[in-house]
């Protein structure tokens, strides 16, 4: 199972999901109303590296992070 973490202000508990790529995750998230406002503005990291394609293969034990808009300083 991959672990999904929702960072910063998203305020949602981590999830464990059996997925083999990010396209599957996208389909699952499309049904989650709580995420509707966040998906369009969040970047995605797999094992702490930001990724740019949903074709990315996901292995069991991978960590997926959703990163909302930032404002350090």
């Amino acid at each position, binding site marked *: 199972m991959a672990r999904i973490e929702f960072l910063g202000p998203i305020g949602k508990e981590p999830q464990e999901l059996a997925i083999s790529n990010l396209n599957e995750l996208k389909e699952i998230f499309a049904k989650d109303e709580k995420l509707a406002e966040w998906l369009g*503005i969040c*970047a995605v990291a797999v094992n702490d590296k930001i990724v740019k394609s949903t074709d990315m293969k996901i292995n069991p034990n991978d960590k997926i992070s959703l990163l909302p*808009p930032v*404002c350090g*300083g």
Partner: protein
Amino acid sequence: MLELHDGSLDVPKITARWYEEIKDKNFGAFIPFIGIVRDEFGIDGLSFDIYEPILNSWFDTWQKKAKEQGAMLFMAHSKGDVLNHTSSYISAVVTPQRKVGLRLINDFVEDFKASAPIWKYDLIDGKRVYAKNRSQALSGAGLLA
């Protein structure tokens, strides 16, 4: 050198410590950038969440870039609450030559604002309110939309 502190940063102490560390190493310029929380929008202060694994790798990449130019970077940032008129952020560059240093601190701070995985909240009436309209989506945002 990247350091995270709970609450406000002690600016004189941190910058003095960095200066002591570099002054005998034959750099010619030391340029700190100090961010101070402004009293605006009716806030009592700011509060910060940080995702450390990605912050660390982002900083390491910049440190390598700095070293290639003979320079070195320092950064300190607050976690949690930081009241108005205190500091939440210090970065500094040391370089042999001033021109490299002035360009580097500018580029570093700009990229920090665009890329560092840090979330800012306004402290209003004891509550944390995400500063959404002052925040920037990261490069690659919207992948799952």
